[in-house]
């Protein structure tokens, strides 16, 4: 019989403690933000999709040697890199750098395998589109367009 009343006491007490916890939470400030209007600071180190690195600030040339290591090492096969020999230029010239973001798993192996640091991660994270084609990036165009 005493156990019966002890159960009621301990049970009731634990329930009141629980109510206390949630009551404290009502008073505390809200932790979420209204996303499209407010944004939280996103670290610049985020590994987004890849991007060709600019030669320097004002120069829209890039470092790529067309060695093809990135495309070769990519586990998802989402990179297409092509180059051609041109008169008067040493080595190959990059003509195609297609990047299929729909296949990419964002592992970063391409950036690591690049011997010239011609690739980098973008810190863009708000990517949305209506068709798949919007995520087939032409990185050369993106580089020039910027």
């Amino acid at each position, binding site marked *: 019989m005493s156990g019966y009343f002890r159960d009621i006491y301990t049970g009731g007490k634990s*329930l009141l403690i*629980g*109510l206390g916890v*949630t009551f404290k*939470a*009502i008073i*505390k400030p809200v*932790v979420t933000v209204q996303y499209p209007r407010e944004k939280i600071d996103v670290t610049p180190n985020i590994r987004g999709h890849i991007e060709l690195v600019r030669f320097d600030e004002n120069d829209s040339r890039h470092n790529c040697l067309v060695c093809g290591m990135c495309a070769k090492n990519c586990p998802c096969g989402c990179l297409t890199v092509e180059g051609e020999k041109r008169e008067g230029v040493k080595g190959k010239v990059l003509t195609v750098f297609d990047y299929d973001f729909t296949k990419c798993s964002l592992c970063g192996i391409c950036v690591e395998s690049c011997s010239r640091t011609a690739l980098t991660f973008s810190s863009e994270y708000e990517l949305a589109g209506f068709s798949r084609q919007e995520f087939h990036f032409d990185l050369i165009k993106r580089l020039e367009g910027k």
Partner: protein
Amino acid sequence: MQQIIDLIQTYSLLRMLIAFLVLIGIVFLNAIVMGYLERKIAARIQRRWGPMEIGVQGWLQMILDGVKMLAKQLIVPRDADRFLFRLAPLLCFTPVVMIFAALPFSKALYGINLHIGLIYIIAMASINVFAILIAGWSSNNKYSMFGAMRSVAQNIAYEIPILLSLLSVVLTTASFDLQKIVEAQSGWLWFAVYPNLFVAFVIYLIAGCAETNRAPFDLPEAESELTAGFHTEYSGFGFGLFAVAEYGNLFIMASIASIMFLGGWNGPFGLASGPLMGAFWFLSKVFVLMLVMIWVRWTYPRVRFDQLMNLAWKYLIPFSLVNLLITAFLVKMI
């Protein structure tokens, strides 16, 4: 204008029609306000914002949700009993309006005053179980069926402590008339002040939570077990009516608690309680109780079915019985 008022006064049927239309409006308004408050408070408990997009602080959200539900198709499952499936939401909703008619919002503001108002309300409130049973059975879905069965067993078990706890108030006032019960509590001596009736009040609140299928006793719609319980198959305004009726039942539960135990439309410390101030006091008590129920809902996990039954038969019913005996003894003594 005078002609219209005369007309209304002559034809009592017309008066009732108008009263019922107003009451339906109040039931929907209550659902909108409570739905909004519930979402906002749940959000604050969980440290979110809740609805914020439509209107200032999202206050139009529930109205738009209602409009959305009206615009949706009412899907009747293939092997469902079409007639009963359509009937169930109405059967759930109608008693709520009928109960609202008998609630004394203040001394002069009520639909009908009945001498047996309390019995009427309790009888009407039990129709809700039929609606849930019919909804669960007619949708021809195993999850719905589980929800319906649970609801019936739960309601049968919890009617008893509710009745027993209310009976102790009836013993004290010797009346089923809600107006008389409220008048008996005028001044500051609300019934919840007396220790024996306070116990009855607590028992009523717990049992009322279970009666209205609110968490932590929301077994008929336990979404992690039964997806959505008895209204799994409902869409559009069939579902909407269930939601409206749920909030309506919550309102009824809280208003009976405030009438029976917290002095109804009496202001605290004998403050003025005219027709409008009385309604204000009444509504504020009801809303405080409903907010407590929301707060409880967003705090606790759900109980298991047999534990729910244990709570009713092993704790609430013995306590309310003993309490009733003590009350009867005290009433005889004094």
